């Protein structure tokens, strides 16, 4: 549709629209322009980067596994419950989505710290959580779990409840129904939930540095290393950033191509 006087509306709307686009695109393009592509492989193989890379991979994988084995049952209960409290639980789940990660880190410290609610009972056993690799996983799980649970719950709510009625009359217990019908049918939701949660865990910075600190080989993940290297050797920071950007785009591509539309 074309209307007279469209140029005026094009300008009044087009200028801010272009500005918004530029705000998003310019930094990314600059990052790509500043990259020294030939250096990237060697940058990523330096003794500083390798431990962080390894740590990021192990902690994000652990987070993904925790989401899978703990988050799937939670999503199951949320999807099936019609109780009033379900709404509150779901609201609680969304808090970490919008909470400043550093606040999450403080909260984790309050819970798991030496004198924390849970931590004080662990200290006598000789178990210390903060500033360990376990703390990194806890921080990543704290921020990533909601993405997983909400994605999987949505997929489970999409199942026809009559499928369960039929499966039950065929002799399936609810566990067997979950294993043989519900989970196979929500696999796409589980996969996209895992991808989202993993990507979120990979980028985790605020909660990690607050709760786990920044110790090389133990709690220094890739985002933390980027922050450190920016002071020391910006080119390495850029190389790592390029890799993280590539991973993010890859996850996005997988999600869009297969499950998100």
């Amino acid at each position, binding site marked *: 549709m074309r209307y007279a006087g469209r140029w005026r509306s094009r300008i009044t709307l087009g200028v801010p629209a272009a500005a918004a686009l530029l705000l998003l695109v310019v930094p990314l393009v600059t990052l790509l322009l500043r990259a020294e592509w030939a250096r990237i492989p060697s940058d990523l193989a330096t003794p500083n980067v390798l431990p962080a890379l390894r740590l990021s991979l192990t902690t994000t994988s652990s987070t993904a596994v925790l989401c899978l084995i703990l988050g799937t049952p939670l999503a199951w209960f949320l999807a099936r419950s019609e109780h009033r409290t379900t709404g509150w639980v779901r609201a609680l789940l969304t808090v970490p989505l919008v909470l400043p990660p550093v606040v999450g880190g403080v909260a984790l410290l309050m819970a798991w710290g030496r004198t924390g609610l849970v931590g004080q009972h662990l200290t006598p056993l000789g178990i210390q959580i903060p500033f360990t690799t376990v703390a990194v996983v806890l921080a990543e799980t704290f921020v990533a779990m909601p993405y997983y649970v909400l994605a999987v719950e949505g997929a489970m709510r999409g199942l026809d409840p*009559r*499928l369960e*009625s039929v499966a*039950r*009359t*065929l*002799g*399936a217990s609810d566990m067997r129904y979950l294993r043989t*019908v519900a989970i196979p049918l929500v696999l796409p939701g589980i996969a996209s939930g895992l991808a989202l949660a993993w990507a979120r865990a990979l980028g985790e910075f605020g909660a990690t540095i607050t709760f786990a600190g920044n110790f090389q080989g133990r709690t220094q993940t890739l985002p933390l290393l980027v922050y450190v290297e920016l002071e020391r050797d910006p080119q390495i920071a850029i190389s790592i950033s390029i890799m993280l950007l590539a991973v993010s785009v890859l996850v996005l591509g997988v999600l869009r191509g297969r499950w998100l539309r």
Partner: protein
Amino acid sequence: MSRTAESPRWLDARVRLSRGAIDVDVALSAEPGQVIGVLGPNGGGKTTTVLALAGVLQISEGLIRVGERVWDDGSRPLAPEERAVGLMLADSLLFPHLSALDNVAYGPRSRGVDRRRARDRARAELDRVGLADRARSSPRELSSGQQARVALARALATDPQLLLLDEPLAALDPDTRARTRSDLAGRLAAYDGVTVLVTHDPLDALTLADHLVFVEDGQVTQAGTPAEVLSEPRSAYVGTVVGLNLYAGQGDSHGHVRTADGGLVVTTSPTEGSVWATIPPSAVSLHLHEPEGSPRNAWRVRIASVTMQGQSARVGLVGDLALTAEVTLESVTALGLQVGRDVWAAVKATEVRTYPR
């Protein structure tokens, strides 16, 4: 139902529960091999009854007993997987990620049969519904009629004592429905448990069931064999289903029936007291002038609707008595039967049946 008191029937169910806006109280009983047709308007409690029999819903009072075993007595219900029950719904609800064969084998597998024997059984069941050659197909690749047959095979593969079919043909197009109905009839003839068939299609009920139960607003309004129901409907809904004009009224010994709306019907078969009176639509003749001679019933009526049905027309009439007449298409044109026209409706007294209410 008087037989219940003498010897307990094989299926003996009194389903009482509240769900949504309706209080359901439905009694069903049958012997092995029987098909109970449950009919009634939508939202009347048919599906609720079926889900209670399946164990998906629990009854609040009453009893569900099959053979020797009590499935639910209002306090300790057996879970669906503990009941020997088969369930088939309007949408075939096949598991979309399993082949036809694995859908049918799902029941035996869930009940502890090993994979090979479950598949052998599934193959045999698919063969009995004529789908042995589609065993490897995924539900997506099957037509709606084939999906319904796989769903039936799946429901029967666990040897249920009670087979529940909730509108099994409702989702099918008319051609497929007719074919699937005869497939269903063939398969049910070889089934020795009790079948409860919920439908709102009278044709399903009359061709498949040997006992009919009408459920309206959660209550049984009529139960009996198709022949009994066809000749003596006992609610307005049943009257509509079997296609008779039905009136509740008061009869006297002279053959006069005063209907609830104040109409007067004369019959040669008088019943005294509270009665039902039926008039077959085909016994109603329409005239432009007051008919002379023998008919004892003649009412001044106005045409409210005319619908075609094959070579005849059904004419809805209001006036001294509300009734439906079935006339030939020739008379529609010859008499100029148009909506709004005033005519006379005549019925011979011998065509009016009465029976106690």
